[in-house]
């Protein structure tokens, strides 16, 4: 364990372990609750693998009713609950505590209803992001949000973190594509919020549940908006001698009134790593690479790309190359989506996720370069340029004493920089435990108090994912009140 502080396990809960597990088994079915440390091993961490902790037990329910029964047991014993989708959180959103029950939704993986006329799909929340699109693809539809982990990540996690992806410039993020959820409250009550229609009846509870990091309840079903696939899409690659020039080009494309579906940026180190890994045909002698994708019919694509070329030419790109086939397009995207894997082959890395106003891009890139020198660590940048969502990958050596601490300190400095220039700590990964203690840099006490009041309304005892999102001392009195109440 590194520097992240986690709450001391509730001794009251730990001492009743056997009783709690028996009650869970009675409520959920014996096979759906696991507590053998060998079996719970896989649930000790998520994709933020530097932190792990064996939970008290893991429940893998097969229905919404079973989730409700499990939550009733947990709330009656005052046991913390950590909801888990596929465990792909990069922010430690699904990290257990020693006194918690992990509730995983992986067995809730069925499509419940599809309506192409009304353009929605109702799914159980354990379905993976990509399998939702797979379910409607035959009819030419797709589900728009496309986080890089879409092959593995669950809709439950997408809703919890309000996941984004590469194409949100045009299609928005999860919250803009989510129509309704079935939420099980900590008391085990099943409630329907929203549905296959527009706008909420009263307060937009759906809007605040999305992105609440599993702290308001367990989402077991989701109604998602599906869209007809565009007729075609084609990316263009543009290489520049300087990151500033690439940034200026992005701004000018937007000002020209073109709205590409995606604008991805990679800097020198990222280009080289991705090219070596995926052989995508990226030019490796440029300082910055833009992948800009547009959609439509062949002639619409030609028209938009011509406009983009015209704007880009003003910035003297070293390379400007349109994809000429579906195969080439796939390769170009494969290279970008493989960025994290490619980096993983070179070194250990931490992936940051801040967002900045795109006007601040040149300054932020320059400042990050200076900080990399100060820390003596390399940083590679991939990011969603159209929306300012940065993913600096800080490379370090986990076997070298002190390197990870240094990396975390560098990461925190980058995120503080994002906030200083008017941006935020996390654009799409979520706060989790990773950025919990940085919240004070973005929010005042009053800002956080307002947020915590919403959690109070959903989960008054603060049992759901309790040590995440807010700094430990900020949430201390609320979590403490819970413990004394349960005891």
């Amino acid at each position, binding site marked *: 364990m590194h520097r992240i502080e986690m709450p001391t396990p509730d001794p009251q809960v730990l001492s009743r372990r056997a009783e709690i597990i028996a009650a869970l088994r009675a409520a959920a079915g014996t096979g759906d609750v696991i507590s053998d440390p060998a079996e719970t091993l896989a649930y000790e961490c998520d994709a933020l693998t530097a932190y792990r902790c064996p939970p008290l037990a893991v429940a893998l329910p097969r229905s919404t009713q079973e989730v409700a029964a499990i939550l009733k047991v947990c709330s009656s014993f005052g046991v913390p609950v950590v909801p888990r989708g596929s465990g792909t959180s990069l922010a430690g959103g699904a990290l257990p505590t020693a006194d918690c029950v992990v509730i995983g939704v992986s067995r809730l993986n069925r499509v419940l209803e599809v309506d192409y*006329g009304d353009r929605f799909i109702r799914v159980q929340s354990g379905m993976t992001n990509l399998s939702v699109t797979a379910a409607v693809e035959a009819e030419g539809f797709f589900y728009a949000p496309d986080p890089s982990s879409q092959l593995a990540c669950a809709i439950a996690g997408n809703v919890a973190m309000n996941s984004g992806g590469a194409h949100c410039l045009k299609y928005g993020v999860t*919250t803009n594509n989510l129509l309704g959820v079935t939420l099980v409250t900590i008391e085990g009550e099943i409630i329907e919020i929203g549905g*296959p229609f527009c706008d909420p009846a009263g307060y937009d509870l759906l809007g605040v549940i999305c992105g609440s990091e599993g702290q308001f309840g367990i989402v077991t079903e989701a109604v998602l908006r599906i869209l007809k696939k565009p007729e075609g899409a084609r990316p263009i690659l543009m290489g520049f001698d300087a990151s500033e020039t690439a940034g200026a080009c992005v701004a000018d494309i937007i000002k020209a009134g073109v709205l590409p579906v995606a604008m991805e940026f990679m800097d020198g180190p990222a280009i080289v790593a991705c090219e070596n890994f995926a052989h995508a045909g990226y030019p490796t002698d440029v300082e910055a690479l833009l992948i800009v994708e547009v959609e439509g019919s062949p002639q619409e694509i030609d028209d938009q790309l011509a406009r983009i070329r015209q704007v880009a030419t003003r910035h003297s790109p070293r390379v400007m190359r349109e994809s000429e086939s579906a195969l080439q397009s796939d390769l170009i995207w494969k290279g970008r989506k493989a960025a994290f894997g490619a980096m993983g082959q070179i070194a250990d890395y931490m992936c940051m996720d801040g967002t900045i106003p795109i006007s601040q891009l040149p300054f932020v890139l320059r400042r990050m370069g200076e900080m990399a020198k100060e820390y003596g660590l390399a940083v590679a940048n991939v990011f969603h340029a159209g929306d300012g969502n940065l993913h600096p990958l800080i490379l370090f050596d986990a076997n070298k004493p002190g390197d990870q601490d240094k990396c975390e300190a560098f990461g925190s400095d980058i995120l503080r920089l994002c906030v200083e220039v008017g941006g935020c700590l996390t654009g799409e990964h979520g706060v989790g435990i990773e950025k919990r203690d940085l*919240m004070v840099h973005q929010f005042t006490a009053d800002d956080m108090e307002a947020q915590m009041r919403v959690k109070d309304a959903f989960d008054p005892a603060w049992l759901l994912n309790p040590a995440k999102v807010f700094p430990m001392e900020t949430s201390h009195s609320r979590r403490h009140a819970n413990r004394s109440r349960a005891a």
Partner: protein
Amino acid sequence: METFAPADEAELATMVAGAARRALPLRIRGGGTRLSVGNPVAAKAELRLSGLTGITLYEPAALTIGARAGTPIAEIEAALAAEGQHLPFEPADWRRLLGSEGEPTIGGAIACGVSGPRRIQAGSARDAAIGVRFVDGTGAIVRNGGRVMKNVTGYDLVKLMCGAHGTLGVLTEIVFKILPRPETASTLVLHGLDDARAIAALSAALASPFDVNGAAHLPEDRPGQARTCVRVEGFETSVRYRMERLRALLAPFGEVEITSDEQTHRGIWRSVRDVEAFGAREGAVWKMSLRPSLAPALVAGLRAEMDLDAVYDWGGGLVWLLVPQAAEAGASRIRNAVSAVGGHATLIRATPEIRRAAPAFQPESPAIAAISQGIRARFDPAGIFNPGLMTVRSDQQAA
């Protein structure tokens, strides 16, 4: 009535804190054009946002704009137009519909969650809003979201504030993501379709890959005169191409007319956005949200029981109803019908008597009502913000 007109956010916060200490119920007023929306408010003082105006941030290349809550929408649209951009959610102007005067403000549009026809493709008011500042019921200034369009830092209170009608806090500033203003636009019109055929045609258009961003069905002024309208916006090459594809796609529904005349085209969508068809007519007005495919049968069922006219927007997912101003304006029947198919109905316009008798918003399930009440009690502990506007009184429950 006592009136507060703060000049800035800090002064507003002080006034709210003072009102909270006195438990003085406040009517929050932006431009005053939507004051009759919601349940009647029992206020003893008015809080005017007219002093909080002005654009605070505009970065065309970042597609973001921010403005103080009392800023007229027209001022924001003008600034955006100068840079070839616009608000994606096409905020409606309800002055004619509600018979109100004043100037619609951005804070009012967000507080009421008002989105126009483009909502089906470009998202609603809450989708466009990416940051807010507000003053809560204790007088604390709260900031949430920010000025970047991808932001998952902490809970999304921006969404919660949109459509809360000021009952959770007084909005002081809102930041939006915006879109390039399209180079051109065009509208396809089918004539004389009945409701069911019309919604089927709109569904076919919306389930096409042609980025339809307006899909409405307007009732008949005279028999057989109904118009079913489909809008496409974008670069000229695109619009021309898509319109031809849509013409072919919708040919089975009847003769297709395509209008690119700006005046006609703008007129159609302004009329849809502002529900102009009901503006000049007597009657109570309802706004229903439901599954598009279920809307025509639901409306036909209601029509068998009461006189009504219907305007369909959002491909049929939004239905405006005009009904006689009698008793509770059909509240029970309309609410039962819409909740049976999974949706909700809001009473937008009615006489004071009807508004006292029928709750403006669809009654919530006890579990959701408890959460909503829990949030409201925590954001406005003294109960001073537009008290009663979003709550269902116990004597209205039966309605």
